[in-house]
């Protein structure tokens, strides 16, 4: 009997791994992932798409004070009507019109465009410059602060490092959030991708009527578990290959890029949010950011995180995969799966939606509750694990997850063994309830 389930696992594994689609996905996946990592950086480098902006400044506050920075190129134009005409003839991309008002009131400002709408980044960058100029003016004229002093004020940055009171270890919050997010998302992806494969496999066996032939040799439960485990192995193989290949590509591409990047460009690309005064603040900021990312990394217990990841990864998959199998067994073709898929997708999507909340407060009550419920815990507990979770909470969560997948497997097996032998019947929830009691 044991060897039969191995036979099933082997068949499920071999037929899938030999498929063209598997090989293609295995190669394409890392290229996609790598491009996700590499392309934004490359784009930063090659992004030379500038916006030429005609400034019509009636107030006189901004004369020669707007800097050509980033993608913005300013030039002064005297007359608004002329500027508008030139805009229509595409001499400029944008026209910034600052009206004159009384001294104490903020100047009404308009930005005109022709066909090509300015992006949020452009608008924000212009706003920031205008604000800076006005603040500057106010500081210097009203409070008599020199430019030098002003730059000093701007350069003040606080880098808060959370430390453990007993060990003095730094928390490396950014890194931990990154690890948690990546782990949570991987689990979510894996459950969905390979859960769906389990479902398709069951539907295929049912619609080709092979299942009745097999079911006379092997128990339905063994067929189901064989399929679930076989596909899990396929998934693990694919993930492993993806990780290895992605790192390979990133390492090669990264090496090529590093040689063509100047240090300053590097800092800029890593420092996207802070473009106010790149020469001074940018340098300092980047150093602290990288430092912040890396400081305390040595204190992260990677072995523990990987262990937890594997537990939640496998637990979450087992919990959902058997339910996907049950859905597959209840229908005759994939089109009918919709109604039963909803209860499976809702908790998973809920978990993804709750990630930012858990990220904000990894030990809040929402985070704790959702990391206990087996349907959301695989995704959300991984968000919390890097920040340290009390042992009893982890134990309870894992215990509940194990109980959860034993329950869903039992539940799914009952539906599965009836469902696979039921053809040509439109099944609803009432019908499923009956199957549970057979």
């Amino acid at each position, binding site marked *: *009997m044991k060897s039969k389930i191995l036979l*099933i696992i082997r068949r499920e594994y071999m037929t899938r791994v030999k498929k063209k689609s598997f090989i293609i996905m295995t190669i394409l996946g890392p290229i996609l992932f790598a491009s996700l990592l590499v392309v934004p950086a490359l784009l930063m480098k090659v992004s030379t798409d500038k916006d030429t902006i005609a400034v019509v400044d009636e107030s006189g506050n901004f004369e020669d004070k707007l800097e050509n920075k980033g993608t913005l190129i300013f030039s002064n134009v005297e007359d608004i009507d002329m500027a508008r005409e030139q805009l229509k003839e595409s001499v400029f991309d944008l026209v910034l019109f600052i009206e004159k008002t009384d001294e104490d009131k903020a100047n009404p400002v308009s930005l005109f465009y022709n066909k090509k709408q300015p992006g949020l980044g452009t608008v924000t960058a212009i706003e920031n410059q205008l604000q800076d100029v006005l603040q500057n003016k106010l500081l210097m004229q009203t409070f008599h602060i020199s430019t030098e002093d002003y730059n000093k004020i701007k350069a003040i940055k606080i880098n808060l490092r959370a430390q453990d009171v007993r060990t003095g270890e730094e928390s490396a919050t950014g890194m931990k959030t990154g690890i948690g997010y990546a782990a949570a998302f991987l689990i979510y992806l894996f459950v969905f991708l390979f859960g769906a494969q389990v479902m398709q496999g069951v539907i295929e066996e049912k619609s080709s*009527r*092979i299942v*009745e032939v097999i079911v*006379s*040799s092997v128990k339905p439960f063994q067929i189901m578990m064989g399929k679930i485990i076989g596909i899990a192995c396929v998934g693990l193989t694919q993930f492993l290959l993806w990780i290895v290949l992605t790192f390979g590509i990133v390492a090669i591409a990264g090496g090529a890029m590093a040689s063509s990047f100047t240090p300053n460009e590097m800092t800029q690309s890593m420092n996207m949010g802070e473009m106010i005064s790149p020469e001074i603040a940018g340098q300092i900021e980047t150093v602290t950011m990288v430092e912040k990312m890396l400081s305390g990394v040595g204190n992260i217990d990677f072995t523990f995180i990987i262990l937890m990841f594997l537990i939640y990864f496998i637990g979450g998959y087992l919990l959902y995969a058997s339910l996907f199998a049950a859905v597959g067994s209840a229908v005759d073709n994939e089109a009918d799966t919709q109604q039963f898929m909803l209860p499976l997708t809702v908790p998973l999507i809920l978990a993804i939606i709750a990630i930012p909340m858990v990220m904000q407060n990894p030990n809040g009550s929402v985070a704790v509750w959702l990391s206990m419920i087996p349907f959301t815990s695989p995704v959300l507990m991984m968000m919390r694990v890097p920040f340290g979770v009390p042992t009893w909470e982890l134990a309870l969560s894992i215990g509940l997850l194990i109980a959860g997948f034993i329950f869903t497997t039992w539940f799914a097996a009952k539906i599965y063994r009836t469902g696979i032998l039921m053809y040509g019947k439109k099944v609803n929830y009432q019908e499923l309830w009956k199957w549970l009691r057979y």
Partner: protein
Amino acid sequence: MNIILEAKNIHKSYANHKALDDVSISVPRGCVFGLLGPNGAGKTTLIRNINQIIAPDSGEIWFDGERLQPRHIEQIGYLPEERGLYKKMKVGEQAMYLAQLKGLSQKQALEKLKTWFLKFGIENWWDKKVEELSKGMAQKVQFIVTILHNPKLLIFDEPFSGFDPVNVELLKAEMMNLRDKGTTIIFSTHNMGSVEEVCDEIALINKSQVVLNGNVKEIQRQYRNYSYSLTYESTNEINLQPLLPQGFSVLESHPNGHGFFTAKIQTPEGSKINNLLTEITKHVDVTGIQEILPSMNNIFIQTVTK
């Protein structure tokens, strides 16, 4: 009698539908046992019970002198009515997989499959994908996989559906061959045409109950209506009716050519063939006589509509 399979008082209900109601059958070793009945009578449910795909609510099944248990699966071969193969898998690979699921070792499976593929003339399908085969071709593969592990008991559920006549004959011949080698065969069908030819014993299931069972010959005798087909030699057709005593009637009469004639005669219930002969030989030259037994199809319809 040597019984290989016995089901005793099987009950099986689904939610609000009784699929089997106190069903008992016993299958003698080495025979072809017809499991007959209209669609939805409960045949497939009974077969699934025997195959341990589902468990009865109550009742016992005995196999080869023991209570039925999981290890018996390897001694039973089952060709279900709803049968299929993995479409994307190669024929040989698939046959190997199914054979190994039945407990054969890889070596045994390969050896036996090669022999059978040769026998059925399908050896060059080994590396073809199932989706390239016709339905009849796929059925041949399924048949081979079903019988490959030399089971003591074979269960065929509507085996001939989807086969062309040539392959039906091939299959029948293989079935008889297996029976002659000592394999017991349960043959489930709602099509009565092949029953007399193929089955030794039958059980007729209707509305979840066994309504008739036993030896085919005995059942036919039980349902006999004492009519005979009589052939005689004469220069011209004779009206037999006036020559027969009361209670006898000529149902039909027609010439056979070359001076032979056949008449179908109904005799009174309980009378013997000799009664008819005694009367008729006084008047005509009888060259042959045979009892007309009711066809299983008639018995089936008669019983089911009763």
